[in-house]
């Protein structure tokens, strides 16, 4: 139950935060938010490392690969994009 409270609060907080991101940053926002959703890596680690037999381990391995791809790729590509955003040096 308390979990639903947390989920609700985080949803509201997400709305407020995202609403303030300017359109200029919407593409990095998408990839950055994407990277955050890779948090499911925590679940993958728990599954893979728990020693619940080989099925779990295989599934866990795949889950880790997918999630880490999402995390590493997401953060790196977002960083690459954001690096390019520069203010006018003259101004």
């Amino acid at each position: 139950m308390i979990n639903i409270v947390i989920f609700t609060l985080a949803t509201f907080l997400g709305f407020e935060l995202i609403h303030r991101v300017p359109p200029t940053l919407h593409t990095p926002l998408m990839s950055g938010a994407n990277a955050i959703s890779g948090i499911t890596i925590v679940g993958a680690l728990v599954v893979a490392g728990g020693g619940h037999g080989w099925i779990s381990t295989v599934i866990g391995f795949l889950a880790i690969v997918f999630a880490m791809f999402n995390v590493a790729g997401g953060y790196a590509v977002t960083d690459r994009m954001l690096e390019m955003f520069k203010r006018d040096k003259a101004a």
Partner: protein
Amino acid sequence: MMPHAVVELSYLLAAVLFIVGLKKLNSPATARQGNRLSGLGMLIAIVITLFDRQIVSYQVIVAGIVVGTALGLWMARTVKMTAMPQMVALLNGFGGAASLLVGGAEFLRSELVGSSVPLMNGIAIQLALLIGAVTFTGSLVAFAKLQELLTGRPITFPGLQVVNALGFLVVIALSAYQLMTAEALLWPFYAVVGVSLLLGVFLVLPIGGADMPVVIALLNSYSGIAAAMTGFVINNHVLMIAGAMVGSSGIILSQLMCKAMNRSLTNVLFGAFGGTTAVASGRTAEGLTVKSIAPEDAALQLAYARSVIVVPGYGMAVAQAQHAVRELAEQIEKRGGEVKYAIHPVAGRMPGHMNVLLAESNVPYDKLYDMDDINPEFDRADVALVIGANDVVNPAARNDPASPIYGMPILDVDHAKSIIVLKRSMNPGFAGIENDLFYNPKTSMLFGDAKASITKLVAEVKAV
């Protein structure tokens, strides 16, 4: 094993770093730092999990992390900026797949061990399976469409939506059955996963290629919710918080795009928009003449303009003309003209698409203006230079109630003293409709690939 309080506080710290990271995305000046803080939060979450949980087989984990990270970084390094929509789709799909797998593993474990799962967790597992699977295959289809492995046209057949609705009901029914029955059954599980995977495919196939960004934003939202569900399953609040925030982010972005296109989300998802090409709208272009212009003449206009507004669109991305555009702007500025960029919220194929491309070519972000800020300035502009944009400058959105894009807010390029449009032909843009702007007496068309045309313009302006 670490003390419980330390673990919990570390997860909370990770969540706070995600929050602060998103907060800092509210300005280009702090955004990069924000993204890095968010990444730090992720690192903390991963490390603390490795330390805390009774991890027995480190080899598998290390292997998985190395493979996943290597592939991810390699993609991130090599992907072209113009291919960003595909990249996001792929990342998204993989996130969904991970949630699906985690949900599946948890299910199998509880089922095999025979431990009875609390109802809440059971529901969360089923939701993780459904949402994860739909996100996975849906994102892959979106990727294929954007990468043009599949046609951008809507692929549909009569009754498809009925089939989808049925599939959805089947998943719900099977999940409910699974939750209610005491037996350890595997077939409903496989069925739920299988049908959900198909659902993802059939939900996205009938949507046109240019609507993919909306779909991706929505799927992004789903992948967040799927992650939150796995958080419910393994009872970890950092997953719930991060997942919920991503969930709201995707919803906001898809709403924003729909608003900028003046279409409802339902229309995007089920409207099979973009199927027909060049539908003659109420008022056709017959009898009107188009004025074509030579690069030399266009260059003259630009060279002597005091104020130029560049309006980039999807064609600039196709032609990869962003670097040439910057060069042209520099030449004009060297001659004392002022250059601003007018960015329509749905120009290109994803929100902020043009901004990223222009940032790539080193255009400072304070020269990029949002629609509402720049529209009043067209009145004072000498030249509006439209580079591969079409629908976002179509006055039919203002004038023609019969037009499918009627009511969509557009850039007021026709208020400029003179308009130069760069495109390859008279073909329509994504919405598949005629554009009266091209027949406006103030408009001159410079036909040809945008990059080639602009390169010529640069040379000519230099020569003036």
